């Protein structure tokens, strides 16, 4: 028998160079003008072109959530999002959460609760939690679970992560509804 086909389920590279597009996008508030091949995923561009390796790659299949970033505030799996689709858009990665001097409350609380072990899921988990609290500042336990259900963690058993998000929500003042 002869087997000259790929043994990997990943499609074989065609060998033909993909088109290159000039893309302007903003990452963590900084503007970038980059030349991006049409077939590049966002996580690869963030990690390799921009050196932002806080965004992790765990499955390349939208199953683990380690690559979660915010695209105009919405959480997306950046492994499965084409970078050229980000023209003119704002991306936030885990590197954009903390200020120069202080951890973000979610970062502080996930450490305080013991919700970080190996840390590989943590950036994606934080981005999902951040997106959740932006839209729902006072989530119930169940809403936290739904909001983070796209992020796998193998170390913690999740309880301390739920606790960290709940503690962050509890300590963050919710703006009263505006008058009138």
């Amino acid at each position: 028998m002869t087997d000259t086909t790929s043994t990997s389920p990943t499609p074989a590279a065609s060998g033909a160079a993909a088109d290159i597009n000039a893309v302007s996008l903003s990452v963590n508030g900084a503007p970038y003008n980059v030349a991006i091949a049409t077939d590049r995923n966002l996580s690869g561009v963030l990690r390799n072109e921009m050196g932002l390796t806080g965004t992790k790659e765990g499955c390349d299949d939208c199953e683990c959530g380690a690559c979660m970033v915010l695209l105009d505030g919405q959480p997306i799996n950046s492994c499965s999002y084409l970078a050229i689709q980000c023209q003119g858009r704002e991306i936030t990665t885990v590197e954009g959460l903390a200020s120069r001097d202080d951890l973000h409350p979610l970062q502080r609380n996930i450490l305080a609760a013991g919700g970080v072990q190996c840390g590989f899921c943590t950036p994606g988990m934080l981005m999902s939690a951040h997106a959740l609290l932006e839209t729902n500042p006072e989530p119930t336990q169940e809403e936290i679970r739904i909001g983070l259900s796209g992020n796998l963690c193998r170390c913690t058993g999740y309880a301390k992560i739920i606790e960290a998000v709940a503690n962050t929500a509890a300590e963050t003042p919710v703006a009263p509804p505006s008058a009138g």
Partner: protein
Amino acid sequence: MTEAMVPAPSEDVPAFVRADGPDKVTGSGRYTADITLTGMLAAKFRYAGVSHARITRLDVEPARAIPGVFAVITADDVPDVEFSYGIADRRLFAKDVVRFEGEVLAAVAALTPELAQQAADAIIFEYDELQVVTDLEAALADSSPLVHDDLDAYTITGDTPHGGNVATHSSITVGDAGAARESADVVVSSRYVADASHAVPIEPRAVVAQWEGDKVTVYTSTQVPFDARNGVCETLELPASRVRVIVPHLGGGFGGKCGFHYEAHIAALSRAAGRPVKLVFSRWEEFVAPDRRREGMIIDVTTSMAADGTIVAREADILVDNGAYIADASFFAQAAAMHVAGPYRIPNVRIDSKLIYTNHQPSGSVRAPTAPQGCWASELHTDELAAAVGLDPLEFRRRNIVRTGDVGPSGQTYEEIGLEQCLELASTSAGWGRDLPDDEALGVGIGWWPSFGAPAGAYMKMHGDGSAQIITGANECGTGSVMTLRMLAADEIGIDPSAIELIYQDTAVAPVGPGASGSQTLFNHGRAVEGAARQIADQLRDLAADHLEANADDIVLADGKASVAGSPAIAVDISELAATAASGELLLGKGNAEIRDWPTLSGSSCLGEQGFSSFLAPQFFCHVSRVRVDRDTGVARVLEVHTAHDSGTILNPMAAHGQIEGGVMMGVGQALTEGTRHGDDARQLNPALLEYKLQTIADAPSIHTQFVEIFTPNAGPKGSKGLAEAPNVPTAASVGNAIAAVIGKPVRRLPMTAERVWEAVEGLDQPDSSTDATTYTGGAQ
């Protein structure tokens, strides 16, 4: 929401913010795949893609001809070395025969990962297919094809009885179990079958290698940097002094990253390419290729009892799926025998356990190897025993478990142990006996797991400003154990843990140690660090004695000061002593973990002794799970897990709770969803996270944990035992017994998927019915 939605409170757990925490939450921490070196190339492997075949042609020239490809290497390009623990049955690259689909034929280095994949695909591989071995029972037949034609052609070490497709055979024999069965009142036989499963760390493994002259530095996502280094040295025939293994932050391991994997492939590839090379695994590769996954098992167990439920004998035959190569699994047969025996007083034992070669992916140490499956079978069987004599499962266990001073089923006499307390604490916490809806039940599982003594060293130095460094061969795979080393050193020296930095995961600077395997970090590396810190403490006491004009034996080191016992006002800052030392005799310490001997046995004989017939500093535990089962769909949901663990003294409560919760969650996955399915061609059918389901945050039960802190002498630091593997052991058992209590019969296959639960409810679980549990009253008639 129900109470199950509320996570266990942790207010009572002292705060512990891990030293590597800020690095991990900000994204600044580097993992292996994050490393980029100047001129670095990308690596891809060409895999066999067939489970058993004789190689007739392997032509790499088409790959080498592709522009941008720097190197393609095969077995022809590395020393012809066979390696592995126990049976040296494997080479880096397949030669002549491939024995599982994930076997590496060739490695390619090219400018980009895409180009490397294209080149790997261009390699021409021709072969003659051989018959595959997939069925553990059929593999034992004389007529079975053999995975390895001649095991005796390999170098075999240790007490490793083998032959045919049997890699190792271990037994436990105590008394005369057959005779005891003949005269017993009640005899119950059961069969249980567990599928293989996977460690699934969220970080896929990665390796980066770079040569400088005749020395190579390998960055790798291993749990065991010294094993990785030794593997490179052995297979590439290099001295240890020229191989440096550095582990950046490690994104989880759970045993899957124990042992030696692809460090030598990438080092050899980098040397051939003349460039640094990086390998990053896909999730598919992570499922299919490494020789570390949890082994499938078939367990036939028969227990004989007196009418009052006293166990008089256990007989068992265990088949463990080794897969194609032995990796580190030579002890699995014996370990499985211990878990099927269980922590019970059993005066007559006959257990035969065989590790079987198949054409599956090789099995290897995943978090408490053989224990979750063995415990699941033993504990479901135990509930069947209780039912057969009309006893409550808890009461049945009370009558038969091992207690302090008892002799266990392999002939080991136990010093002070806390199994009895674990059983009572977990069952009380769960409200054993309370009324529950008719689709819910509680289930109990108990078990045990050893601690492991291994050589480990540590260095320590205190700087002139009073800060200090620990230099350790320990490996932080996430548990927090390495972080906890600071606390042990701080206790000895009397300074704040935050003043101590950790230098770890670099074989060039640290003394040897077992790394993050076998729950050994604190047990062994911790004792080494204590030893190193004590040497510095002794030096500080001498300096303080001079300074304070006191006796060194009277100096107390605490809160950053050296003071005279009983006279706290007579004191000097430790930082001042450190400054004095910096201009004289430097403050340097080194420590060695004293080797711990395995407990001796009496009255038993064991074939295939692999070091698992007695348990050093044994850990004991009990989990009680509340499970809801939908009888119409077979869907089971774990609502609560109540745990109690005797792991000796708890050194870091927050990290310990984290290990319990993570272990329980992994156990719930093994119980309900995590199982590898194989085709008739021995290849995996579900090597992806979409088809191999981990538990998500939405599935998480509430977990309630208590520790039975028995100070254990001749064990780890401060009377501690190991911890990280134990919580993974009894969860599936407790879930299984809860499911059985709801539906009225055990589900005899692991994982207990919705389909299998439903089949059991409907009486359709025929595959096992020929060997289904037969309960009969024998001698009492």
